[in-house]
């Protein structure tokens, strides 16, 4: 379990670093891009060192310590990325740095996430890289994220970014509908907007239209207090049966798989 956890953390962190080529700038006169690349390289080197130490030690306490460092080390780096973004607000590295902070803060709760989102919304809303950021932020339910998604919906010139922001915001409204009356209606409206305007935008292994249509159906029909929709399908032996065959019984429905 632990090895699995570490490797998934690593995968995500490596994914954060792979989009950029390492710059080899001289010590004097470093471009913001070079500074960004060096910080990413430094971060990655520390990660690799940590995962090596993790594999090599048998000491449980030491492993706990390393794991903690791996999940929180981004906090030490994000102020430096924020510095680059504020020193060179118009550079490509500014966007890269801000995106880095947000994705990292997503995992470790960095307090630089809010300011980074504000800067992205104020200065870089036209950047096409915001599309994938809006996808990553889907499940980070905060007011800062919602404000950011709304700015992207309103002002991004990129259709895929607007569509994905719309879908992520719909999801957040759906998930907070129990706590905040009114969000259910907002969720339905946003999902409908995705179905109407962004259906063909590709999303993960499918497209936004299918995902939003599914979510819209579910948010209207599958919830506590609603009659469960009928299921008619084969069992594992190929024999067809129905959920309604079990009417009159209390039923636990378990979406499962052996993995």
């Amino acid at each position, binding site marked *: 379990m632990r090895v699995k956890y570490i490797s998934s953390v690593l995968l995500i962190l490596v994914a954060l670093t792979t989009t950029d080529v390492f710059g080899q700038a001289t010590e004097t006169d470093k471009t913001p891009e070079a500074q960004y690349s060096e910080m990413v390289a430094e971060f990655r080197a520390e990660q690799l060192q940590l995962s090596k130490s993790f594999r090599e030690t048998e000491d449980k306490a030491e492993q706990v310590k390393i794991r903690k460092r791996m999940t929180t080390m981004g906090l030490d780096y994000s102020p430096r990325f924020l510095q680059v973004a504020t020193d060179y607000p118009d550079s490509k590295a500014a966007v890269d740095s801000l995106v880095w902070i947000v994705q990292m803060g997503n995992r470790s709760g960095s307090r630089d996430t809010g300011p980074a989102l504000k800067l992205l919304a104020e200065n870089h809303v036209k950047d096409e890289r915001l599309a994938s950021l809006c996808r990553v932020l889907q499940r980070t339910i905060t007011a800062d994220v919602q404000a950011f998604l709304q700015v992207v919906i309103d002002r991004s010139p990129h259709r895929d970014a607007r569509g994905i922001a719309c879908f992520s915001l719909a999801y957040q409204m759906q998930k907070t509908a129990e706590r905040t009356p009114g969000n259910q209606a907002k969720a339905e409206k946003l999902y409908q907007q995705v179905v109407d305007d962004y259906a063909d935008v590709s999303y993960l*292994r*499918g497209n936004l239209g*299918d995902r939003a249509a*599914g*979510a819209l*159906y*579910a*948010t209207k029909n*599958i*919830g*506590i*207090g*609603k*009659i*469960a*929709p009928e*299921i008619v*399908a*084969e*069992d*594992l032996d*190929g024999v067809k*049966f129905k*959920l*309604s065959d*079990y*009417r*009159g*019984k*209390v*039923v*636990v*429905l*378990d*979406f*499962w*798989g*052996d*993995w």
Partner: protein
Amino acid sequence: MYPHERSLVKRLAGQPFALLGINSDRDREVLKKVMEEQGITWRSFWNGGSTSGPISTKWDVHSWPTIYVLDHNGVIRYKNVRGERMDEAVDALLAEMKKSK
């Protein structure tokens, strides 16, 4: 998951209760072997061999496992209750059902 669900099914044998799966594994034959080894006796709908099969797509399920508990009228009453909370939910619905008769 399996040991808890096994004991729930065993405890409620003979009661108006059913545990039903919606299974998203790829290979039914491999799965049946696992089920035999693990003592999984409850029936499952086949989601077509994929986590993006027709049932999970319609139900908008994108994380596993996802649990729904339905009362005897087919109304969804609980979502994602695990362990003891699953037992409590089922017991409460069984009691409610007896009372309503």
